[in-house]
């Protein structure tokens, strides 16, 4: 495979984890025979059999809840919830059970499970199939939340998530599944909680993750010709997030924009901005800006759906504003 896609990297990470550790099992709707709505689990049924690659009923609550019990009893389940929007049906298991268990039971057990949640819009899937709800999970002590944006990170973070003893919310961006990219051989180890500097620059720090990373890099390229150098930080992990990396960048650029696909208000960017308005305050030469989706549901209409996504044009506007 010369240039694998994000989807292939995820598939390979799942396969490698399953080969390495027989406790790893997969649960989800149409993930076995069909290979998953986005093709991430293709071929795994044939390779690992129906005991470990399980098509479930359309029952998000029991899928997630059973994963908690299975993890408490020695398995390492990886759950696919077909669209992140459907996790609304599985919140008890994730928030009240998985997230609390290690703490609540005084460390008697941990809950090594991964919940895969495809998020994001841009495919006219409408208001109930497009949401980016990662801020919910980042607000819950006991969970970890990651969101890779590259082929390599998709592999490495999936391995890290499966190896992690705590419950990890693994967010996949639907628009990125087909993205091609390098897959280092051997794959790099990426720790949960570590950001990457996707592009160095001295003028403005852009903190981003997921589908917005590519748009941020586009913006950086466009602005470079105008002599403006963006430093683009790919957060990769949202909880815990790499405060030190963001602060380091801010010390260089003194200007911060947080950029993500989630709705701006009360979104993940709010935490990053708020935290930097505290510990990074003395470094700031300008207001902290955020660029996210507007405060509205996604819509079916192509026109509305594309206006909804925070484009690189909107980021460029924000850069101009922050440098004004």
């Amino acid at each position, binding site marked *: 495979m010369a240039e694998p896609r994000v989807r292939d990297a995820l598939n390979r990470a799942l396969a490698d984890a399953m080969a390495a550790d027989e406790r790893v099992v997969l649960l989800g709707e149409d993930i076995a025979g069909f290979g998953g709505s986005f093709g991430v689990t293709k071929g795994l049924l044939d390779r690992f059999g129906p005991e470990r690659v399980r098509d479930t009923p359309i029952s998000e609550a029991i899928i997630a809840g059973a994963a908690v019990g299975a993890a408490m009893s020695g398995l390492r389940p990886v759950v696919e919830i077909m669209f992140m929007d459907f996790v609304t049906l599985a919140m008890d298991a994730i928030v009240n059970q998985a997230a609390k268990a290690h703490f609540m039971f005084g460390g008697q057990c941990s809950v090594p499970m991964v919940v895969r949640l495809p998020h994001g819009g841009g495919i006219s899937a409408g208001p109930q199939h497009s949401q980016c709800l990662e801020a919910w999970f980042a607000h819950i002590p006991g969970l970890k939340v990651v969101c890779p944006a590259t082929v390599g990170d998709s592999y490495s973070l999936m391995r890290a998530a499966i190896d992690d003893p705590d419950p990890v919310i693994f967010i996949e961006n639907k628009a990125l599944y087909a993205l091609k990219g390098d897959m280092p051989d051997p794959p790099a180890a990426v720790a949960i909680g570590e950001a990457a500097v996707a592009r160095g620059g001295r003028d403005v720090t852009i903190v981003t993750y997921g589908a917005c990373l590519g748009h941020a890099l586009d913006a950086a390229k466009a602005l470079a010709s105008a002599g403006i150098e963006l430093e683009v930080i790919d957060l990769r992990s949202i909880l815990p997030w790499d405060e030190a990396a963001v602060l380091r960048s801010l010390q260089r650029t003194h200007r911060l924009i947080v950029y993500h696909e989630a709705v701006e208000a009360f979104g993940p960017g709010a935490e990053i901005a708020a935290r930097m308005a505290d510990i990074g305050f003395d470094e700031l030469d300008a207001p902290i800006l955020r660029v996210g989706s507007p405060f509205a549901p996604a819509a079916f209409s192509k026109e509305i759906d594309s206006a*909804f996504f925070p484009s690189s044009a909107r980021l460029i506007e924000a850069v101009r504003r922050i440098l004004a």
Partner: protein
Amino acid sequence: MRKQKAESGPDTAQLPRWLDFHRSMHIIRQVESRLATLFADGEIPGFIHLSIGQEASAVGVCAALELADTIASTHRGHGHAVAKGMALDRFFLEILGKDEGACRGRSGSMHIADMGVGMLGANGIVGGGLPLAIGSALAHKLKGNGAVAVACFGDGAMAEGILHEALNIASLWKLPVLFVCDNNGWSEFSATKDVISLDLPQLARAFGIASRHLRGDDVVAVAEAAGQLVDAIRGDGAPRLIELHTRRIRGHFEGDAQRYRHDDAADREDPLVNHESRLLRAGVTPERLAEIAEAARGEVEAALQIARAGRAACAVGALDAVYAQRGAARYG
């Protein structure tokens, strides 16, 4: 499944109604056939779930309903929308994402709704329509308006716990709701028998809900059963359930290559063909049937042309239209 008992001789008093069924099913079939080509041609983005093969269910059930009755549908809701009385131009305008669409282009196929005819929406969430119908039935009951709410779900949705909660509360509160299960044997790309291990007749019985289970490929039988159940609901206010065994003739959604699919439900007929045989047996000429089908096609085409000429939905106003009443502060 039990075979329907042999039909008694042609009932000419029923003929106008039967012809109506023929017409309605053809309209829906035609609507969806056009959606299939529009999707294939790239004129419609997103997801399109067609109910081709299940028209007798929508038409037969809605034949029992009045305007004031409400219906909460599934992701496969075109038939319900049209059969409940949604105007075709409003319908197409919506599915083509136009500003004049019933939902101003925001819902598209998967959430299509028309409150004016009591169509509370297709739903992007499997089982999502069930609680809406329960609530609507509660409203009917408290208003004492004699209306019935219809709760549609698929066989795959039987796995969702919300069905259990809905059956319990409907039975407990004696809500005027008709549960309608369109059992097409498929839960997306899985045969439902591979993901469901429950018997719906017994489940209904466990909740004390009277139910009927029949082939859904015979519109007359569906209309008769649904009519009796709706009458019974209007009579005593208590919920009923009907399960209709149908065939999903097309894929789960448009674009589905259906490689997972082997011959299934071959015994369930195409309801349009089925009904045409009946009408022919009843003495209607093939010409008459073709004429009606042709008129349906014309109606659909006319509506589609109106829709195509519509104005594309526009983000500017839309992103400000999130609330019925804006709050004091800036958002939007």
